[in-house]
């Protein structure tokens, strides 16, 4: 029989090495899958993981792809740390985009510098409002936030669909379900880096995302509010005993993650699309769930996890274009990666011990005491 025995101490280099090994294992397993599917493994892997980074501008695109994942992932980390399972970030993202779009479309001719911050505020409020529904239902009626937040995602998707086909449709769109373009003041401009200039589609949303992740880390590890969040997740009775209100934490983390998802929706539209359309997100709200878990619910690690997952997404596009590999392979890669990362994480924390029938350890060099 195999038992998992907690390791007493783990050297730092092991902690750092394990994700690298997990990624390598993913590459090997992925190569095998390509071989089975009839593609040459090495070129396919190249298209998936190297080609997206072969030019500097591609690195900019990677950051752009990771931007909403990092913002939403940070918010979800708060929720999941508190044992609140917000699965509806996708809906909150859409709500945020609609809220910001409403403001931008109300002032089609404005050149005010306040429009963009105003849209950010609207997006955060709309996303938070969308998340407030599962929060208040949970607090008042003890409903399950997983179901309510998930179902509200479909409501949000239908809402934006109706809006762009109905009340907000651009009369000049030839019947396409699109709103008018936002005024320029409502768009997020490209980021010009010193000495390099523009890097792909890199925009100002990316540094904002990084800042949010760092601030999230600071909040969780250093502030009393973060302590309350962790407490509610680890030991809710202890939280109540300390005098913190579980309801307030429930509402707080849901509003925070809803607000951040809303902000991500606004940034996505203002930086990349410029108008509302039926599909503004590529499932970022759902993918961010994987990101939060890959990051082991640590906001700083969300940055790295966001980039890794974004790479797989980007590589999927490249491979589809150049080698006609179906896009669903991206999903398989995400799954394999998740598997190896979680396995690596488990093996970092626990040591497998083989125990034979008589209860004696058969593994050589196993310390029993």
């Amino acid at each position, binding site marked *: 029989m195999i038992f998992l*025995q907690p390791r007493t101490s783990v050297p730092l280099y092991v902690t750092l090495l394990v994700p690298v090994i997990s990624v390598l294992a993913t590459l090997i397993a992925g190569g095998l899958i390509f071989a089975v599917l009839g593609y040459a493994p090495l070129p396919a892997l190249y298209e998936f993981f190297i080609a997206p980074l072969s030019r500097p501008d591609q690195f900019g695109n990677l950051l752009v792809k990771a931007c909403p994942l990092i913002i939403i992932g940070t918010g979800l980390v708060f929720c999941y740390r508190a044992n609140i399972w917000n699965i509806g970030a996708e809906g909150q993202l859409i709500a945020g985009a609609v809220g910001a779009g409403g403001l931008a479309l109300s002032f089609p001719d404005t050149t005010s510098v306040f429009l963009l911050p105003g849209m950010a505020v609207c997006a955060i409020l709309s996303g938070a409002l969308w998340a407030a529904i599962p929060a208040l239902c949970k607090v008042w009626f003890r409903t399950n936030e997983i179901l309510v937040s998930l179902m509200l995602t479909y409501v949000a998707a239908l809402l934006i669909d109706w809006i762009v086909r109905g009340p907000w449709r651009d009369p000049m769109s030839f019947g396409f379900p699109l709103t008018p373009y936002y005024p320029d003041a409502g768009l997020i401009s490209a980021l010009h880096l010193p000495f390099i200039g523009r890097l792909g589609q890199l925009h100002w949303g990316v540094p904002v995302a990084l800042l949010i992740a760092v601030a999230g880390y600071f909040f969780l590890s250093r502030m009393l509010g973060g*302590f309350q969040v962790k407490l509610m997740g*680890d*030991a809710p009775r*202890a939280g109540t*005993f300390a*005098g913190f209100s579980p309801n307030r934490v429930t509402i707080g983390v849901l509003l925070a993650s809803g607000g951040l998802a809303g902000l991500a929706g606004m940034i996505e539209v203002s930086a990349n699309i410029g108008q509302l359309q039926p599909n503004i997100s590529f499932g970022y709200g759902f993918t961010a769930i994987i990101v939060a878990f890959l990051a082991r619910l640590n906001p700083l690690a969300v940055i790295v996890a966001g980039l890794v997952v974004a790479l797989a997404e980007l590589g999927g596009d490249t491979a589809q274009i150049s080698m006609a590999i179906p896009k669903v392979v991206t999903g398989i890669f995400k799954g394999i990666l998740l598997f190896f990362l979680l396995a690596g994480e488990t093996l970092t924390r626990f040591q497998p*011990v083989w*125990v034979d029938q008589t*209860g004696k350890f058969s593994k050589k060099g196993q310390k029993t005491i």
Partner: protein
Amino acid sequence: MLTMSLMKDIKLGGSIRLMPKPSSPAKEHLLVARHVTKSFGTFVANDDVNFTLGAGELHALLGENGAGKSTFVKMIYGLLQPDSGGFEWQGRPVHISNPQQARAMGIGMVFQHFSLFDSLTVAENIELALPETMNREQLRTLIRTRSDDYGIPLDPDSMVADLSVGQQQRVEIVRCLLQDPSLLIMDEPTSVLTPQETDQLFDVLRRLASSGCAVLFISHKLDEIKKLTSRATILRGGRNVAEVETAEKTTHQMAELMVGETVDAVKSGTGPVNGEVLFSVTALSREAHGPFDVPLEAISFAARSGEILGIAGIAGNGQDELMSALSGEWRGQQKGVIWVGQTDVSQLGPQHRRHHKICFIPEERNGHAAVPQMRLSENALLTGFQDDGMVKAGMVKQQAILSRAELISVTFDVRRPLADPHAAALSGGNLQKFVVGREIIKQPRVLIVAQPTWGVDVGAATFIRQTMIELAAAGSAVVVISQDLEEIFAISNRIAVLSAGRLSEPQPAAQMTSQAVGLLMGGVHLSDDIDSLRAEGG
């Protein structure tokens, strides 16, 4: 390699240890265990245990929580199989592979947690456990006669739900007796009983033994073991450390064998005190919210400066509900119910009550009083976040919480593997010392504590009790809610009893006997009766 040499050492140590001498070699051995070893993963629960039991013998298995008592008897009852070593039953080696086989051999077992269906009658419950079906009328007669024989009359037609815990235990015993066992194993049977019920149980067990049925009695309560049994096998850390004639050892000596270290006695508390009232509760009531809640009915008491008020009672009589009402984790609608000095704190949450220098220590260490996954410093923050310098502008001051945790650990002798380990890395006793120390270091005017020494080793328990006595001596009021009568009597100035959500009038400890407390535990509430009880008990 290290493993192998360690394993050898252990084996060697086991084989050279002298076998305990049976008390009466002439008597035939009913059960012999030889070199029984059982591990769960990497944890060795029983390590080379040798054991003999004579027919008709009252034998105790003594040890602290986690010493391996339950594992050992589960192997006798066939619920577990030893990894190595084995048993001899009536002189023949046996392999007991399941409880059915154990019962067929004549081994019965009554578990700490009963396996009865509340909604069925006594007869129906017993019928379910019989190996073959029996005429219902015959069975009812059998239950009547058999239970009468042993002085524990049972009505076969009463619903189990309507029976007291002690009566339910009798159903379990009678169920075993119907199969004419030669050995009855009782796992911590007195932990759910009042002193009176315990005495009745002991009578039954003695009668059983005199009729030839051996009883293996598992307990960690030394007084009971001395009272009931002639021999005791003492387990410590999974190993059989001693086998003693209970008449030849004092409880103190047995305690030392059980915990493996010398045990200091608590310096006992003073008599009744007449300090000012620091904490009072007037007519606190609470409705039951769930099926397992116990409603509280008009609970009133006052705790004075300089005294320890002990609240005795068996678990499940409203202790959790009372504690959460006192701490403010649960708040009712009424005002003027809970007072700290002259301040009504009824509507305040725990953190606001703490402002009035009242501190709380809930029963459950893991996940209530402390968070195992968090570091000691964070656990210090748990109830210390309102104190000066701990949190500024929402920011937790790392240095402040680290030095607070250090101060608590040093002052209260909390032994840690690291400077600031996760709470889970501490032993139960050390974590409890930390949890108690965390509140006492704040020098509360009032301390309310539930089960302060539950599941901790004797050394830590003595230390914690001494600490509370010193806090009271310094002028604070201490309220101790405990199921441990020994503890209540050791430290309290006054004693009240919580039974079915009602609290008896607190009485000076010197005037209370364990019999009087026992009757109160059994549900006698009228304070008029107390004098007569006292007369009876004294």
